[in-house]
């Protein structure tokens, strides 16, 4: 089964670099702004776009993303808008577009119906921060039916057995959380990330991308040396909040400069 996320990561790999995955919340500050910002990010170096569904109880999110999604909900965001947003982005870019969502909104709409509409909108699949493969039978069935990627998370605390079962259940890429914590910009990348990526690769994962706490080009450069993709969220949301689409585009461009491993950079300079 083809995977849009895997294809996007493989295109970056063919260009000799890691992939950049850029997160932004749907409906922040409104649906059209989300589409415009995502397109601008894709045009400035993001290979994959991760659109987050604002949710009332986002336990894996830190204060910046919480504030943005709370604002989107207060402005009247409705879950069904995410399909229009995904369709709006895929119509204008080649970037793979994933939806990041807590599970209850999917369950409420109906897992099959959600998957059908996401596929129809051209979406690549789902990133599910509070759904583990153990509970995902219905989603695994629906994602197979509609050809969607299912991006599960692994953490520094994951046991070898859980790494193996998560890798086996995943399609697209495995999302490795760099640290034990919630989303939010941090000054340095945790050293646990590199070991986690190595362990996940060793378990059989072809593509492992790292997120949580990544906010600067230096972080991107450090992670790109060992991971297939780098995920940035909070820093982009803060840029979007403070400077709108131009600021988010500029930061994306800056971050993407870190995607080439150091040796490739040397090659480029020569």
């Amino acid at each position, binding site marked *: 089964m083809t995977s849009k996320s895997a294809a996007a990561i493989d295109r970056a790999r063919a260009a000799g670099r890691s992939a950049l995955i850029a997160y932004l919340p749907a409906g922040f500050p409104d649906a059209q702004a989300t589409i415009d910002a995502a397109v601008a990010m894709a045009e400035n170096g993001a290979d994959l776009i991760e659109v987050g569904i604002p949710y*009332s109880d986002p336990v894996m999110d830190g204060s910046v993303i919480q504030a943005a999604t709370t604002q989107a909900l207060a402005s009247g965001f409705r879950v069904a808008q995410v399909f229009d947003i995904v369709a709006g982005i895929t119509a204008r870019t080649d970037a793979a577009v994933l939806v990041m969502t807590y599970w209850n909104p999917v369950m*409420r709409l109906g897992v099959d119906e959600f998957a059908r509409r996401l596929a129809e909108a051209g979406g690549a699949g789902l990133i599910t921060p509070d759904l583990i493969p*153990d509970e995902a039978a219905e989603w695994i*069935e629906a994602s197979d039916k509609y050809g969607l990627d299912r991006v599960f998370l692994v*953490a520094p605390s994951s046991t070898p057995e859980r790494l193996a079962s998560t890798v086996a259940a995943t399609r697209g890429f495995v999302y490795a959380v760099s640290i034990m914590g919630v989303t939010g910009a941090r000054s340095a990348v945790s050293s646990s990330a590199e070991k986690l990526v190595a362990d996940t690769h060793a378990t059989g994962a072809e593509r492992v991308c790292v997120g949580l706490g990544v906010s600067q080009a230096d972080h991107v450069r450090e992670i790109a040396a060992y991971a297939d993709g780098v995920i940035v969220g909070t820093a982009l949301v803060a840029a979007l909040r403070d400077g709108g689409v131009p600021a988010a585009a500029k930061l994306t461009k800056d971050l993407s400069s870190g995607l080439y491993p150091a040796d490739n950079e040397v090659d480029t300079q020569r």
Partner: protein
Amino acid sequence: MATPTASSAPTPAGDATPADAFLAGAPKGSLRHAPGPYFGAYGGRWMPESLIAALDELEDTFEKAKADPDFLAQIADLNRNYSGRPSLLTEAKRFSASAGGARIFLKREDLNHTGSHKINNVLGQALLAKRMGKTRVIAETGAGQHGVASATAAALLGLECVVYMGAEDCRRQALNVARMELLGATVIPVTNGSQTLKDAINDALRDWVANVDNTHYLLGTAAGAHPFPAMVRFFHEVIGEEAREQILAQTGRLPDAVCACIGGGSNAIGIFHGFLDDPSVQIFGFEAGGDGVETGRHAATITLGRPGVLHGARSYLMQDEDGQTVESHSISAGLDYPGVGPEHSYLADIGRVSYEPITDAEAMEAFRLLCRTEGIIPAIESSHALAGAMKVGQRLTAGKDDPSQVIIVVNLSGRGDKDVATAAEWFNLLDEDSAEAEIGKEGEQL
């Protein structure tokens, strides 16, 4: 593409044989000892992967402790010599007239140390935290009861304690904040989301993800991800076991009905445990009906919610068309939660327990009646169970020549000292200009 995980994954949403899943590992035909993680289609672990290892460690520690006579002896000793167990079973002879003349027996969890059933669970979990080598416990609290109980257990066992509490609740419950601080706990006001109990749980979970190496999350109710629902029930099973023994000793037979209030449902599952396998005993759970379920301002999760996932378990949930959690409302802070424990959802679906809403007004009338007829000031939470017992008593005695043949056990889960300002305001007992009136308007519980 079928993966090994997919084929071996349980199907919580499947409806083939929910009872089989519920009873897996329990004595055949028994409802009392359902081990989790699934209660029919409910329960499970809808949690970030980051926390799964901690849940596994907790489950493993709990299972070993349950089978360890030393641990059980430790619990029994604390229950007897610290909490004051067994709690009494008191016949409410004058209150009985309000319940159609049925004999009403009160399980006096209000007499426990710290004033409610909450102490049973916090002592058990704090001991488990010590066994896991954790030095810090975190807890959520609404009105402050579970926070106070957690701070108490932490002080007793020498653990650091951090309590998450909605910023608005902190302001309204300033005395409970002071109480926790007197006990050595740190109270962190939660300013995220709706700033209520559910948001306090969210922040506690965020803390737990970041500090799981040295921290145990001391969840206060029989909800959340496995093993919490089964584990919290285990620590409260003593309520039902004592009550069953006591009612047999005092009346020579089992009761006709057992009543409890339901927020998350921990006091209720504790007392229900004693009677779930007795088919002659009708069991009732009373949810917070707030201003009335027709107004939308309530916390009647099972009555009006629909299945969803929140805080780690699949269960009935108050949610909107988009799956966003809806805010609950109740005069009782302890019942003001938009979710409910997964075992209750299952017991509702199979019809073993009847869940009904009780409005604020009905609960406050029962509160007043118990004060005046028995000299006991009940918690407003427990007053929902009393109001329900009045209805059940009237129903069961209808047409009976001798209503005193009907026996009802009510779990009086907590004392009402904390609720005096709210009650005084409700019954207009305060001078309009008094400071207490101002506090009561804000729903303060002293």
